[in-house]
């Protein structure tokens, strides 16, 4: 029995799918930029309580006398309102970071759940085919033929307000994309010879589906999931803007924009404008990452 040297282990790891994946991703500077921006946003959102100048939802920290201050104005309590303050005296920068936290949190949770549910359903449809496949796909078609906003609004009208309700609405609206995507690639992969080999080796169905089929269907799923995070952020922002999304006590970027919308015309643009910019940056960054992912995971573009 021969042992394998450390060098070979490193070499082999370099050939593993993950390493090659990261390497190829790094080829697009724009995408790396997008990823960095996204990471910055994510870290800020995670550590919001520690890095923001004030907690804008702690009423004790607010100074109503300093409301509507324009950006870069001085403050007695926190040094400076970098991005101005809103009608309640909340520091916009802090509010935006907390808002990001809510937006990203909701989007990530919804995407994760929709991914899990949609993938499970889609892969079962593809593996078993026949009636099961037909029924599931008709459900998917039904789901996708309704505009997302409409379904979400109706659901929220029924379920009421709350962060968890918003997540439920987002998941309901999005699971179908994953189901359809994974079904497509699973149908292709199912016919491949390595699956036939696994069947020939009398491996059990669950094993074949989850350990052979699923890992090979991941590439398009990763792309869809990334883009859907951005979509979730936008959708949640819309819902909150319309007033049916997250509650006012834990606003997301959308709600912040709604809040400041009325002040736009009176010159106090910063209350809506900066949250809007933050939203834009988040969505663009995620889309840049998603674009590069799509390119490197697209088999036809492989060199």
């Amino acid at each position, binding site marked *: *029995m*021969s042992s*394998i040297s450390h060098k*070979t*282990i490193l070499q*082999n790891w370099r*050939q*593993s*799918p993950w390493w090659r994946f990261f390497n190829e991703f790094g080829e697009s500077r724009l995408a790396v930029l997008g990823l960095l921006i996204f990471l910055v946003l994510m870290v800020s959102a995670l550590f919001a309580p520690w890095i923001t100048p004030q907690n804008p939802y702690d009423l004790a920290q607010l100074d109503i006398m300093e409301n509507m201050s324009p950006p870069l104005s001085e403050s007695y309590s926190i040094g400076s309102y970098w991005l101005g303050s809103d009608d309640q005296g909340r520091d916009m920068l802090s509010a935006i970071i907390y808002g990001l936290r809510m937006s990203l949190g909701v989007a990530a949770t919804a995407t994760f759940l929709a991914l899990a549910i949609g993938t499970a359903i889609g892969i079962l449809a593809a593996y078993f085919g026949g009636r099961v496949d037909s029924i599931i796909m008709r459900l998917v078609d039904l789901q996708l033929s309704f505009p997302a906003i409409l379904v979400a609004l109706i659901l929220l009208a029924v379920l009421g307000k709350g962060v968890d309700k918003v997540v439920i609405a987002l998941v309901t609206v999005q699971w179908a994309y994953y189901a359809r995507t994974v079904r497509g690639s699973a149908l292709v992969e199912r016919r*491949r*010879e*390595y699956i*036939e*080999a*696994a*069947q*020939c*080796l*009398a*491996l059990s169905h669950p*094993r074949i589906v989850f350990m*052979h089929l699923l*890992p*090979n269907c991941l590439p398009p799923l990763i792309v869809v999931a990334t883009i859907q995070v951005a979509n979730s952020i936008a959708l949640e922002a819309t819902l909150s803007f319309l007033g049916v999304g997250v509650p006012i006590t834990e606003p997301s970027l959308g709600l912040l924009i709604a809040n400041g919308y009325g002040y736009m015309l009176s010159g106090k643009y910063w209350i809506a404008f900066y949250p809007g910019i933050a939203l834009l940056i988040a969505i663009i960054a995620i889309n840049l990452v998603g674009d590069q992912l799509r390119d490197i995971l697209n088999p036809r573009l492989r060199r």
Partner: protein
Amino acid sequence: MTRPILSLQKISKRFAKELDLAEQIAKKMGAQVQEEVVHAVSEVSFHVNRGEVVGLVGESGCGKSTLGRIVAGLLQPSEGSIQFDGKDLQQLSGSEARKAALSVQMIFQDPMSSLNSRKRVLDIVGEAPVVHGLIPRSQIVDYVVNLLGKVGLDPETRNRYPHQFSGGQRQRIGIARALAVQPKFLVCDESVAALDVSIQAQVLNLFMDLREEFNLTYLFISHDLGVVEHLSDRVLIMYLGRVVEQVPTGQLFSKGPNHPYASALLEEVPRLNNRRRSFRPITGEIPSPLNPPTGCHFHPRCPHASERCGNETPLLKEIASQHFSACHLNDG
């Protein structure tokens, strides 16, 4: 007289594209909508003796791949029965069925897609024996290393991924994977078709060595008559789902083929020693299996066809010792 290890009786396989709801309604209303049925394999019967190499030859649409998959247990026949090692495969269940399934393994055609690109060689080869309890998990490395050596691969490569290997090496990994479950019978479905000539020779030699070492029996499916002739003890020639000729390989050369299709096939295979001859091919396209000709499937292209050939399907009859042919011309 030993019992054959594999025996097929009147195996048929049909693939039908079922009518969906709209078409069913249309049919009920009198529209000319038919179910599309492909007769991939029609009433094939043959047997394989232990230790034999039986070659299965034919062109596109002849059903050889389908038949191979039926033997390997990947497809269920529409009709007919198969016995492996004396047991009727379709009657088995549970652990007996599993044992029978593991006894017949398949080596696939495409070295690129026959291996799971996300798994390492160690896992590809070692997964099944561990899952089925043939070896304890602690011994997986030793077991796989041993197998890799037997198929001519460097054991150091066991932690590599498929894309790091060449086509010929991937085929070897596929062979190791099949051998890992200790089969008695291997179905090789065009296993060397995608390989370069010099690599093909290496893999064919490997097949011959393994046959000796593990006492294996092969069903060797190929469109390449040269390869089949070299390796097989007996040859079955298929055309559009039927076996048209069955003959020991030696006799195929000494006496020549009997069936007109087999003759054409043999004659039209390019050979190194046929220099700038003028090709005299048989005319016509291979018919679609969706719409096979009546009677003898070959009659539209056969230079000796008669009226009887278009009406009556010829049966596979023994025309000499162990030599079977399905042609009306043999009936005197």
